[in-house]
């Protein structure tokens, strides 16, 4: 493991932990954005340039802004003195620890994982575009339909109610 990967992994993990534990929700959203930038850097380091830039565009650009808007629209940005965790949170955290222990044990003891790193695959954006237009054209169309449906659905759900309705 290279030192670069260790540094990026530490940044990503610390930002994710901060996003889940901070009290101020705007800080949480910004920490989440930092975590996504760290993940994008890891993708770049793993030779997946296209996915790295798509991650920056979609997650850091769109999803983070969307979440900040939602925080402001629901007035969750005001800090209150109430508890930030739901009742019964100990069970949730305990389950998370158990999940990590099981997956970590499996990763460290699995005999099937390749030991030697394979050669870095070279994939150009041109190749990705060709594959998207030939082999993966049906999933591409389905994702287009899904995004359209999600767009219309989100607008309909968030529409203001008519006068007189509760």
């Amino acid at each position: 493991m290279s030192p670069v990967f260790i540094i990026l992994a530490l940044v990503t993990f610390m930002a994710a932990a901060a996003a889940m534990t901070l009290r101020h929700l705007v800080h949480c959203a910004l920490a989440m954005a930092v975590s996504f930038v760290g993940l994008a850097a890891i993708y770049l380091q793993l030779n997946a340039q296209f996915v790295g830039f798509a991650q920056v565009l979609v997650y850091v650009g769109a999803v983070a802004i969307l979440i900040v808007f939602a925080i402001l629209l629901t007035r969750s940005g005001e800090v209150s003195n109430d508890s930030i965790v739901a009742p019964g949170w100990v069970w949730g955290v305990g389950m998370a620890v158990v999940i990590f222990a099981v997956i970590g044990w499996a990763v460290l003891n699995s005999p099937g994982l390749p030991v030697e790193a394979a050669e870095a695959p070279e994939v150009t954006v041109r190749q990705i575009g060709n594959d998207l237009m030939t082999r993966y054209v049906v999933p591409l169309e389905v994702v287009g339909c899904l995004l359209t449906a999600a767009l219309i659905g989100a607008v309909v759900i968030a529409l203001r109610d008519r006068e007189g309705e509760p």
Partner: protein
Amino acid sequence: MTPLQGCLLLSALLFAVGFAGAVSRRNAILALIGIELMLNAANLNFIAFWRYGEHGGGTGGLMFVVFAIAVAAAEAAVGLALIIALYRHLKTANLDEVKGLKG
């Protein structure tokens, strides 16, 4: 520890953190952020296996991640619309105060 194991461990860590946040924070938006973190952990697994797997060279792993990012974006948009509608009706974004269906 091989680089592949490092990636998988980081992914497991991100998944656990996202899960803990999603089920234990009160605010609905924090639950959504936790879900996004879990989805990203899955994407990291795809990229790691694509990079270090034995059958590298194709674009299968990349394509899966690209489509997963698109689906996650749609999910975030619909989820946030739901949270805003919920806030408009109940004047709260706290999940433990939304108990209209509780038995």
